[in-house]
């Protein structure tokens, strides 16, 4: 969010299990409507992704990231 305020369009990728915390930070930071891209279950939380899961998720997330960063989402 601070990158946004500094003029750099940004997107944060969050696992479903941390979405509440991310939204809480957005709320207390004065950006309650900040949108996160969420990776949902059955994908496991970010910190325990395997290398293979990283590659699979990158392919899945890329179109969503592109859409979010170009205002198409």
């Amino acid at each position: 969010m601070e990158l946004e305020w500094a003029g750099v369009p940004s997107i944060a990728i969050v696992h479903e299990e941390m979405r509440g915390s991310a939204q809480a930070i957005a709320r207390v930071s004065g950006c309650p409507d900040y949108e996160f891209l969420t990776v949902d279950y059955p994908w496991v939380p970010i910190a325990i992704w395997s290398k293979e899961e990283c590659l699979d998720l990158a392919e899945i997330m890329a179109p969503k990231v592109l859409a979010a960063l170009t205002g198409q989402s």
Partner: protein
Amino acid sequence: MTTLIGLDPTSGPFDRTDDHDFSPRPASLDGAVVALVANGLGEGEIFLDALYDELNKLSDLQAPLKVVKSSVSIPPDPGDWSRLTEEATVAITGFGG
């Protein structure tokens, strides 16, 4: 009837009133410098590198600007922060573990 006064023990409402604006989005990422901000957790760097490769298939990106934070729990170092704000067109980060 006895009246008992209790003080609010909190630091106030969660919601701030000084809302920030979002940055305008570019129409496309062609020619963009994409910043990849890794928090150092798990295999996050592998994911961000792969994500860049996938995005580069969808757009004609410049070389990425990659920042790995020195600790998961703090913002990027001041030098990295300057590079991000001065050189990046857009940025991608991960949040949490």
